[in-house]
């Protein structure tokens, strides 16, 4: 487990994601999802780089199916970017670190 990403489930979703005053990037993943595993190093590098300005969290869809359903996740990896409790960006499938960083910068740097 990375020291910079936070594991989120149905219990702490509200406090960690919805009520956060920083932008929150959520990575929906599962143990059986090959492409998700391939995205892991990207997410972890991003989490380290943005540890002061954002929260980078991971949600296991097997453990928290209700959250996946609520946000209409039908493919993983799926990345949702939350700002003040609202989904502001969404990406499905492979995505580069630069693209994710750009999404975060847009909020952080205004």
């Amino acid at each position: 487990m990375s020291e910079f990403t936070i594991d989120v489930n149905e219990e702490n979703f509200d406090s960690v994601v919805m009520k956060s005053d920083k932008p929150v990037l959520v990575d929906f993943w599962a143990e059986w999802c090959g492409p998700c595993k391939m995205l892991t190093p990207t997410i972890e590098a991003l989490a380290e780089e943005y540890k002061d300005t954002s929260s980078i969290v991971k949600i296991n869809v097997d453990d928290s199916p209700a959250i996946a359903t609520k946000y209409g996740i039908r493919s993983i990896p799926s990345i949702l970017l939350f700002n003040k409790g609202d989904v502001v960006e969404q990406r499905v499938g492979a995505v580069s670190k630069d693209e994710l960083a750009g999404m975060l910068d847009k909020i952080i740097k205004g």
Partner: protein
Amino acid sequence: MHKVIIIGSGPAGLTAAIYAARANLKPLVFEGVQPGGQLTITTDVENYPGFPKGILGPELMDKFRKQAQEFGAETLFENVDKVDFSSKPFKLHVGDKEYEAESVIISTGASAKLLGLESESKLMGFGVSACATCDGFFFKEKDILVVGGGDSAMEEATYLTKFASSVTIVHRRDEFRASKIMQDRALNNPKISVMWNSEIVEMYGDPKDKGLESVDIRNLQSGEIVRHNTDGVFMAIGHKPNSDLFKNQLSLNESGYIITEADSTVTSKKGIFAAGDIQDFTYKQAITAAGSGCMAAIEAERFLEGH
């Protein structure tokens, strides 16, 4: 300046990396948008020699990568955006970074073919999928369609019955080209039915709302178009080579595969080699891709020695 840069990280690219690293060429591998390649979206690989009980695709590719790194290959989770092979050294662009190489091995593989509808790309990931093993989970108790008639369509349809309440295979012809054993497995499954002589001509749904909700299916014999409600469409109509990057730089055939000389990985440009599904329109197996990756590394080594 790098001696060898490898683009792509499936069985071809990583085998090339193992051989090039062992030849002390210090290869740099750009893993691309799908690190590990197509095997990372399969489940069990049962025909790769050395694994009598089969092995999971992602696990096999992890082993390939570790073996390459063991001998000094550098692998980056980056995607090459642009190449310039017109003069030496060859140039590769990754974002705003430029890399130079004396030789390049291309192993960018293939990706799933789509129907080409605008609505299809809009709904990709929102009910439309090209990866049953990735997305099947989200279709529990749903009614879904699989498009195609080959082995991969049969495999996907059968796999998806683990989740879905019904799976309908939509196929353009009145018979499958899949192997007998795969057809039987699918057709004997009570959850699977088939719409013969049919094709999807339009998809409906809002990616920001419920995603895919229905599709128009045309009967190719009568011409009649009927709207069907569905929760998901899985594409299994074959693959196309990922060669867009190399248009106007290398000779491609009419289907987009990089043309290589007979029994070799040599392309139309000296110093550029191509291995795996990007140049193989016949076998397309992990083992043949690995074999041609090995050939590419040996040919690159000889090319560099001749300099």
